[in-house]
């Protein structure tokens, strides 16, 4: 493990990515306490303030402190993205490994269906699911998870199939091990690594997708301090005070880049070839 960490941190991507992600996670955990102001408190006299003074990053259209909103929004934004990715991955992994394990006709039927579902662009899929369930953060989470599912199913299946062909799995089968042991102890640990890489990169994707859903009015709902929502609301006030748009965009970008870098770093660390 330490060896792995050392390899991860040796690459610039791994290093910067880990740093950023740790920072973002830290903000997600403690942001609500660190916030200097009440993120929801409005101040009629302090609207559209530029950064400086009491308000480090300025204030928004209601006179709310942007820094506090970003900090307290970190929790929901990052957790949502993580949870959605996790859930999508989990669902996808179940379908993918299940399909790979069942094999034969079942595999064919399942994968063709997964392919079919993939023909619906993931944003559109998410839109449909949200409008079905109603616009709210929780439903957006589910929507993103569902939108991620087919892709993840495909990837896990591909990985699971390669793992399944490995001799150590054959050895376990020949030894007469039960399916449960084979799937859980022999296959899963080896399937997980590439999936973790894919997942990490998808987190940034999820952040984008949530933001886009918010823009289309189907994601997090005001007055939530969700970053995507903050950006999409801020578009309207861009000309009064660009800061309202800039700050949340910057944190979104940093988060997305951080997870992307970490994903690339993980990939390199797990695959010594490149």
């Amino acid at each position, binding site marked *: 493990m330490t060896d792995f960490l050392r390899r991860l941190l040796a690459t610039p991507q791994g290093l910067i990515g880990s740093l950023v992600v740790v920072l973002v996670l830290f903000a997600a955990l403690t942001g609500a306490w660190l916030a200097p102001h009440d993120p929801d408190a409005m101040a009629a006299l302090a609207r559209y303030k530029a950064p400086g003074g009491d308000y480090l990053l300025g204030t928004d259209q*209601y006179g709310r402190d942007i820094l506090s909103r970003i900090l307290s929004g970190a929790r929901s934004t990052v957790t949502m993205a993580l949870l959605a990715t996790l859930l999508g991955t989990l669902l996808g992994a179940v379908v993918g490994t299940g399909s790979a394990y069942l094999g034969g006709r079942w595999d064919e039927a399942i994968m063709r269906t997964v392919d079919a579902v993939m023909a619906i662009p993931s944003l559109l899929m998410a839109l449909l699911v949200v409008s079905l369930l109603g*616009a*709210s953060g929780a439903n957006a989470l589910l929507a993103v998870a569902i939108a991620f599912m087919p892709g993840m199913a495909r990837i896990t299946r591909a990985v699971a199939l390669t793992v399944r062909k490995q001799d150590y799995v054959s050895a376990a089968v020949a030894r007469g091990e039960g399916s449960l042991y084979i799937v859980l102890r022999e296959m899963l640990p080896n399937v997980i690594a590439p999936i973790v890489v894919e997942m990490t990169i998808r987190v940034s994707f999820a952040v984008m997708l949530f933001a886009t859903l918010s823009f289309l009015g189907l994601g997090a709902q005001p007055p939530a301090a969700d970053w995507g929502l903050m950006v999409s609301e801020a578009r309207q006030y861009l*000309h009064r005070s660009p800061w309202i748009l800039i700050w949340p965009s910057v944190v979104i970008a940093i988060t997305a880049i951080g997870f992307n870098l970490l994903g690339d770093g993980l990939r390199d660390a797990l695959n010594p070839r490149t």
Partner: protein
Amino acid sequence: LAQATPEKGGTLRVAIDQAVSVLHPLLSRVNPEYLAAELLYSSLTRLTVGMQAEPDLATEWNANDTLTEWTFKLRDGLKFHDGSDCTSADVVASFEAILDPKFASPGKNNVGPIEKVEAVDPQTVKFTLSTPYADFPAAVAYNNARIIPASVIAGNFESLRSAANGTGPFKLVSYEPDRLVVFERNPDYYDPARPYVDRVELKVFPDLGAQVSSLMAGDIDLVATVEPNDFMRLEGADGVDTLRAASGQFCNVNFGTDIAPFNDARVRRALALTIDREAMVDFMTEGFGIKGNDTPLNKSYPFFKALPQREADIAEARRLLAEAGFPDGFEAELIASDRPAIRTQLAIALREMAKEAGITINVRTMPHATYLDQVWTKGAFYIGFYNMQPTPDGIFKLLFTSDAAWNETRWNNKAFDALIEEARGILDPVKRTEVYTKAQELMHEDVPSLIPSFFDVLGAKRAWMHDYAIHPRASMFRLDFAWLDANSPTRAA
């Protein structure tokens, strides 16, 4: 402002923020659709910017003494776009169609208490009303009260969804609901001078920012409604005129007065007392509005008399709550649909203000379609949004009487209903004002709905476009008066 004589020609390009989903004038429901209908069709009367009824197809009208019978005289030689004559029979058929539940016209409840419509002669129409109604000439100017050919109503009513045949200043050239609707000048319009422009193009810009950018780039000539922030941005822009009219437009918080805890007037009043109205005007309108006093009338309406302004009083609010049995406040879910965004802004601002009095409000937003389906007129606590109506009667009858078309609050106050009914039969402005003031007092006291502020109607146009006055009603445009000067890029060709 140079009072130049109108010049002819050019293409007027207007930005609209929603699709013209419905072209049928009897079925239109949102401002862009009203605009298209107004270009293509005419009504008996229409409202001036001062909210007075003026002749449109009808040149003159009069009523009997009890205000229950109204006779309208049509112009000579009116012709539909297809060349056929427009006569009193078409007017009768149109109004009958509007009133016929089968066709489900949204204007059914807005055109007055019509009992019967008759054609007296080809140019005279007589309306018999069930109750006296002094505002009738303004009511027949309602957006859906357009005159369409009787033959269409008898034949294929739905055909007007994709084609048009009216008596309006413009004819339909092409119709793409989500992109572009094109009109051309109607050479047979009853006023030979008007309209001045050759063509009108309605361009759909779903993104508000794109509208404004396009106006600044000179790609369009008029944005009928702009947001306060865009308005401020446009105020300094070269070659752009901003347009502003005080109005009775408002966003309100509706209580389901039959659902606890909002069935207790003390609770409703307590909530009203938490609102810092000055701040609310700022939050919601960026200052382009005035304070509301929890009644739908303001000084833009005739027969209006101001009541003492309600201001925030947290102590009193807490006292009322305690009296109503909520000494520690209560928790409630406030529902706002997502369009227009101002609904959410009101909800969020109220949430913060109500906190002071210990009331916890959870804001829930939902797509407009879901809101209409599940919450509207049924909910306990939700946000409404209304254009200014032509008359006080219009707004009261639309929202607050027991028989209101959209009885959002189920307030159903008999005394109030009687006052509104009484006012309908009064011609004397002083007396009418008195009655409406009493009605306002009832509302102000009982607070079926919170009306914290009114918004001005804001718009913007290129300086090369002239004689366009923004209408307080926001759903009226009168583009047949507008003209383009030689600086307009579309005049050059």
